[in-house]
């Protein structure tokens, strides 16, 4: 005696057997479809995985960025600000600490790259010494103990002894950095001792950041205040935008694939319609035909989804996404080498699944249902 459950299982197995035989009969066409489908999932998933991982990385890296940055605007442009601004913001209620930041850019014609020079308040290098980012060291071919020679603001050569190359792990934030002493920074750029690039403020109560920013603006009307939240939003927006740009390109492939699926589905060949007619004449009911075709579509799309997503994961987290770094790299000389951390996001997997698998299965089923509900005699005579 067999249980009804087993009978149901056996009937489904029979349908799958038939579906596989069907797929095998049009091997070339189905293989082409499978490859196109896998490629589509791979590209879409790569963009989504890469974008999400990059966004997350930037958010985590800059979690401890200054809560408020105060800049001075002169004629609408960023300008150096006087040291007395420090005293004016230090007295504000809610401001825990305020420090002047010294940073700027230098274009090195030898390496054809822009460096970011920074005079840190915390553990600055000794006078004449410089600590450089790993990408800068790679581009200039220099290492610890070498001399980095640059031309200062007045054209005079300036020699820095490299005392340290930053660890490769921090490259995403330090690729083009040159950490120098404040006195060296001022001498190199010709910045007066009582001027700073901008101010970094820390706020005692994180919920008061907006209020403190308003107070700063009241006291310093010529200032521009940038909150950490705005810095975070800038990169959220940049990565969303970039993801969007790539997805826009990929949408043409998605559309092409939708057309392919639609064409395959809506234009059931005469042979396929005759086949459905014969099955019905042999005693299959509409439900059986639909179930068989559903299995056919589900097997192709499920396998394509699993293979495409796995390949995308390998591409992004094991191979460092070579397809997208080319887009990102652009013409920049100093580009950080970094790896991104994977994070399993079930909602993301589900979104990709519903975006790729469901439309295909639906497009396959609809015309089959139309053919399967017709009279077998009518279908075979067409």
């Amino acid at each position, binding site marked *: 005696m067999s249980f009804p459950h087993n009978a149901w299982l056996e009937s489904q197995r029979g349908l799958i057997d038939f579906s596989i035989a069907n797929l095998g009969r049009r091997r070339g066409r189905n293989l082409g479809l499978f490859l196109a489908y896998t490629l589509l999932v791979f590209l879409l998933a790569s963009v989504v995985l890469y974008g999400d991982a990059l966004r997350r*990385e930037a958010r985590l890296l800059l979690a401890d960025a200054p809560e408020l940055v105060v800049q001075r605007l002169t004629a609408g442009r960023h300008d150096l600000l006087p040291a007395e601004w420090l005293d004016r913001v230090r007295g504000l209620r809610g401001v825990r600490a305020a420090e002047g930041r010294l940073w700027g850019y230098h274009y090195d014609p030898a390496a054809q790259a822009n460096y970011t020079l920074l005079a840190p308040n915390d553990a600055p290098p000794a006078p004449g010494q410089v600590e450089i980012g790993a990408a800068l060291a790679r581009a200039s071919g220099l290492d610890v103990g070498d001399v980095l020679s640059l031309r200062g603001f007045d054209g005079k050569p300036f020699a820095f002894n490299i005392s340290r190359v930053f660890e490769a792990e921090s490259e995403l934030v330090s*690729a083009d950095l040159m950490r120098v002493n404040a006195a060296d920074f001022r001498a190199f750029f010709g910045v007066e001792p009582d001027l700073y690039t901008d101010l970094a403020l820390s706020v005692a109560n994180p919920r008061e950041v907006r209020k403190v920013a308003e107070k700063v603006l009241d006291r310093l009307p010529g200032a521009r205040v940038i909150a950490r939240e705005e810095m975070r939003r800038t990169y959220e927006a940049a990565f*969303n935008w970039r993801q969007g740009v790539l997805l826009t390109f990929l949408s043409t492939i998605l559309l092409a694939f939708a057309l392919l699926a639609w064409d395959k589905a809506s234009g059931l060949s005469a042979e396929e319609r005759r086949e459905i007619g014969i099955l019905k004449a042999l005693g299959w009911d509409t439900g059986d035909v639909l179930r068989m075709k559903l299995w056919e579509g589900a097997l192709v799309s499920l396998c394509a989804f699993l293979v495409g997503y796995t390949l995308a994961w390998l591409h992004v987290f094991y191979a460092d996404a070579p397809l997208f770094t080319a887009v990102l790299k652009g013409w920049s000389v100093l580009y950080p080498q970094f790896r991104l951390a994977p994070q399993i996001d079930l909602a993301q997997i589900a979104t990709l699944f519903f975006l790729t698998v469901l439309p295909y299965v639906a497009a396959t089923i609809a015309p089959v249902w139309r053919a399967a509900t017709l009279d077998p005699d009518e279908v075979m005579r067409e």
Partner: protein
Amino acid sequence: MTPQRKRRGSTLAMWALGLCALALLLVLLDSGRLAALHAEALRQGQARAMSDQLTDPALFTEARFARHASQADRHAAFQDHPMALEHFPAGSLMPPPDATALMPPP
């Protein structure tokens, strides 16, 4: 000699599906190891960003206006006009400023 049994299509299909799912599962499970490896790099990056009061990742180093995007003037990446595709790829990869962010809070 016994006749060779023909393997059923459904068995093959389940094998194929199972193998694909297993490959994905293994890759996802390995993400824990990768994340643990990455944690140290992330910690060093965070430490550098915090001690040097850094505000931006060093992703777009080719142009001054793109290097510290969060510190640049609004529209800085759009030297011609918002949405302009311009000289440096970084500029075209930056979104136009969010006009709603400029409005005062209600």
